[in-house]
């Protein structure tokens, strides 16, 4: 892609319904003032007296036995405070909890490598010293002797009899496998006019690579046995569930504190191995220790997105393009350790049929371990891989049957009047209008004139292509889906907490359980509170970040999986509604025993509806309850003005036999259309027009929503065009930093046109839906546009998710290779 000078346009295509109050308006973000002044507090900004800096000695081999470790020379260096080895970790901790059934459950995962290393960059020894530089020096003096073993890099070979075994305890590289069978696949084959067969599709490894790397500053309190972690963990509830048993303590011994986090995108969920190593060091050395991950380490050894192969896909279609069903075998590569996995083996099922009315679906799903970086949730986690697959299927089917991809989509999309729509596996799509979103996106890129543009491009020696990406952003997980992987797991439902209080001087203070990383939670929470209390967002203080000590969190607290607008704001709404009731209760009692309904909240006062002159300022109410409560009648003395609310979405435990049930509460839509031009001489291409249309129900803060659309799209375009974690045959990562791993820069981004509609969710208190992860549509749209563009040069099939120019050149120069991956059987 090259520079584009055209202005970016935001086209509002449907007037927003007018709603009173601050919800739905673009108030200034509360976070911005500190952040634009460099006054945010990120974990690496926190300092403590006498703290030591941690540096990890990491494995240079993808697969090797650790023969010996000698830290003596490092310890001789002045101002080196101490070390930690895998042998110590194996004695002091228990392996992390695994979510899989056997054999995956038998995998032993520790904070440091124990006995052998299983990926390049795996931490083997930790060294602590007085400065960052000295810790690095000392790490170089640690001597580790390895006996290299044959590495396993290709997931497709993981279950071959001769494949090297990563985890001897498991006895196999298999982590999890299962069959998903919904509807009647055999029946739909009998009904089909055509069977389209696709030999292999491959979704590449990449990750959102947040600009701030991971890390923590850990203090250990010897008197209480408690650790405090100033950190950027984005899901402390789950973090504590991993860490506490490993450290052999209760979860209350782990205090997570965050303020500002420099992006996370799911990549800061699986930090527990590093944090446990730091906890052990803080205790062992009796001093605070600080670990800041280096960028190269972040790329090499922390959090890749799941790589997935789709083998031997069959699609049953009627001659008119009606989709009846599909069957595929998915192989998911989770890298060296499962960690958050095998959840990715079920998360995709939230969007089993994509945006379509497919009824008969059969998926054989296998997840394997390989000698590569462990994976972690990554924006669009697992659904993105599956939706890329369904979108590839749609375009390949349309391409092979000579049908219009727009018409095939419209024919098969769930229709606007069919919501709530139940998918073949029991998920309930709450609301939407996919066809309308597509129409808007097509209008934004001027689809009516596309053939003229195609001709114009041809005259310039270029091949123009148009592609569509339809994405559902399923938000608010039902963790009961984990029981479809392992029926013994006792996880189900979801929860989030908020506390809203009126303090002694009338301050309104909100405490969230979530862990924001740029999504503007302070702002949107203030909007909800302001509307409920009749004040302005400026009069609402929302504490930034997360702190276990606030006791305003629950087991699933965190910021992940597109859910804040539902769970976080649902908790805020619940808490502030309670507080409003309590304020009315006190005012009614103080103003002479009138009923609560006679009191209204307005402008920072509780007033009598019938006589606004009779009013008490919030300050007075806060003061009475907190410091002058003897004046209150007995019956209202239980009022605290400190309201903690736990939002619990209405989920049930799924049927583990049928693998059936509602797995997420809301489904936001993003429909993208990409127009690009390919240079057939080189394979280089440029995105010349791009539209993204979003529907996330009622938008609390439209500017924040649009910002999420922009950012997610940029990440998708990066993943579609350049970003891939490529390994060589020895398991060395070839793209271990921003020098080799090219993320979009300002000159790479095409102009993005945006539009939206609002289909309120009937299942949420604000009619809002979680959003922010729908940008995967960009990957689908680019792949589709490339395939469209390349029709005149041998009709190749785009079968990889990441297509840098060299891959496009391969498609152009040898179209038969990809053509051989597809066959159509007429019946």
């Amino acid at each position, binding site marked *: 892609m090259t520079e584009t*000078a055209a202005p970016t346009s935001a086209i509002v295509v449907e007037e927003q319904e007018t709603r009173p109050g601050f919800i739905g308006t673009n108030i200034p973000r509360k*976070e911005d003032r500190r952040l634009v*002044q460099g*006054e945010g507090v990120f974990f690496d900004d926190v300092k403590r007296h006498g703290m030591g800096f941690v540096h990890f000695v990491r494995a240079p081999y993808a697969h090797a036995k650790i023969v010996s470790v000698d830290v003596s020379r490092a310890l001789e260096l002045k101002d080196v405070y101490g070390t930690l080895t895998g042998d110590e970790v194996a004695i002091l901790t228990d392996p992390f909890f695994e979510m899989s059934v056997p054999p995956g459950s038998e995998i032993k995962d520790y904070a440091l490598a124990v006995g052998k290393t299983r990926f390049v960059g795996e931490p083997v020894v930790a060294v602590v010293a007085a400065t960052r530089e000295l810790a690095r020096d000392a790490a170089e003096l640690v001597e580790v002797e390895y006996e290299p073993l044959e590495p396993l890099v290709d997931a497709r070979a993981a279950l071959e009899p001769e494949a090297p075994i990563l985890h001897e305890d498991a006895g196999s590289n298999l982590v999890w496998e299962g069959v998903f069978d919904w509807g009647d696949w055999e029946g739909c084959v009998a009904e089909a006019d055509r069977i389209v067969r696709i030999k292999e599709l491959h979704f590449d490894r990449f990750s959102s690579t*947040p600009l701030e790397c991971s890390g923590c500053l850990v203090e250990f309190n010897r008197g209480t046995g408690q650790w405090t972690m100033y950190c950027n963990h984005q899901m402390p509830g789950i973090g504590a569930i991993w860490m506490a048993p490993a450290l052999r303590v209760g979860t209350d011994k782990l205090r997570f504190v965050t303020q500002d*986090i420099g992006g996370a995108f799911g990549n800061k969920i699986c930090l527990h191995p590093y944090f446990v190593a730091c906890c052990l060091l803080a205790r062992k050395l009796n001093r605070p220790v600080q670990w800041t991950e280096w960028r190269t380490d972040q790329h090499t050894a922390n959090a890749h997105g799941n790589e997935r192969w789709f083998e031997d896909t069959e699609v049953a279609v009627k001659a008119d393009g009606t989709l009846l069903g599909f069957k595929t075998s998915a192989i998911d590569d989770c890298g060296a350790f499962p960690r958050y996995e095998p959840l990715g083996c079920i998360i995709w099922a939230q969007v089993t049929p994509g945006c379509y009315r497919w009824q008969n679906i059969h998926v054989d799903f296998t997840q394997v371990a390989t000698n590569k970086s462990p994976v972690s949730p990554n924006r669009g986690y697992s659904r993105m891989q599956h939706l890329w697959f369904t979108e590839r299927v749609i375009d390949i089917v349309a391409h092979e049957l000579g049908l219009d991809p727009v018409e095939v989509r419209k024919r098969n999309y769930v229709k606007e009047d069919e919501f709530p729509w139940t998918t073949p596996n029991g998920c309930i799509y709450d609301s939407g209008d996919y066809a309308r979103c597509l129409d808007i996106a097509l209008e934004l890129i001027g689809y009516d004139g596309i053939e003229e543009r195609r001709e114009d491009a041809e005259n310039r020696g270029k091949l123009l292509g148009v592609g569509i990406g339809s994405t559902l952003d399923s938000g608010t997980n039902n963790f009961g889906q984990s029981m479809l992987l392992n029926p013994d797991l006792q996880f189900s439902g979801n929860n989030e907490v908020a506390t809203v209080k009126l303090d002694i001087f009338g301050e309104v203070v909100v405490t969230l359980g979530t862990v924001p990383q740029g*999504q503007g939670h302070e702002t949107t929470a203030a909007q909800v509170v302001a509307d409920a209390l009749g004040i302005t967002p400026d009069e609402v203080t929302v504490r930034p970040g997360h702190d276990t000590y606030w006791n305003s969190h629950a087991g699933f607290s965190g910021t992940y999986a597109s859910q804040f607008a539902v769970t976080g704001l649902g908790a805020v709404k619940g808490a502030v509604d309670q507080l409003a009731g309590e304020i009315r209760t006190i005012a009614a009692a103080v103003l002479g025993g009138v009923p609560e309904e006679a009191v209204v909240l307005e402008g920072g006062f509780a007033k009598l509806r019938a006589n606004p002159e009779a009013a008490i300022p919030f300050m007075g109410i806060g003061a009475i309850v907190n410091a002058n409560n003897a004046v209150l009648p007995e019956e209202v003395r239980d009022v605290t003005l400190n309201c903690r609310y736990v939002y619990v979405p209405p989920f049930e435990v799924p049927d583990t036999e049928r693998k059936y049930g509602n797995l997420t509460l809301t489904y936001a839509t993003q429909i993208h259309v990409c127009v690009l031009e390919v240079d057939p001489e080189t394979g280089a291409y440029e995105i010349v027009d791009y539209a993204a249309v979003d529907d996330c129900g009622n938008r609390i803060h439209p500017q924040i929503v649009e910002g999420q659309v922009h950012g997610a799209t940029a990440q998708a375009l990066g993943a579609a065009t350049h970003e891939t974690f490529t390994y060589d045959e020895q398991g060395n990562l070839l793209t271990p930093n921003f020098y080799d791993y090219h993320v979009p820069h300002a000159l790479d981004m095409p102009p993005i046109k945006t539009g939206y509609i609002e289909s309120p969710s009937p299942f949420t208190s604000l009619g809002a839906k979680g959003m922010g992860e729908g940008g995967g549509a960009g990957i689908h749209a680019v792949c589709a546009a490339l395939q469209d563009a390349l029709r005149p040069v041998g009709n190749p099939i785009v079968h990889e998710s990441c297509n840098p120019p060299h891959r496009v050149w391969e498609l152009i120069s040898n179209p038969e290779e990809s053509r051989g991956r597809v066959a159509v059987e007429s019946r």
Partner: protein
Amino acid sequence: MSAPVAQKTISVEVNGTTYERDVEARRLLVHFLRDDLDLTGTHVGCDTGNCGACSVIVDGTLLKSCMMLAIQADGASIETVEGLGTDGELSSLQQAFSEHHALQCGYCTPGMLMSAKALLDENPEPTEGEIRRAIQGNICRCTGYVNIVEAISAAAEAST
């Protein structure tokens, strides 16, 4: 030949305040700013000089402070994000970034602001292409740059 110096006393002016400190010869300017002077607004996002989160202005020139040793800045005058506002008032650029939602997590923002300042100091009326070129050394993973470009453009318009 004398042994190489491992430590040196340097004097640096940062945002109008002069600091004199002993620093290791190998200490990066960004770590000097963050760890020695506690000016933590300047961030570190990579270890290869690609991301630009550590961008500062040294003697009028935009630089990535991870690509310069602290001792090389001896005698220099440095501007960092902490110096952009005046008496608690946001500069027009800072204000524009907030108004146009040009930041989400805020991690790239200090470096982005310094690159934008360096641009507008030189070229008060940049085109969109010039703005994009000016921030091509700053990576943002949240915004797709859309609103950043708008904000810089708006700040330029506001001050001309």
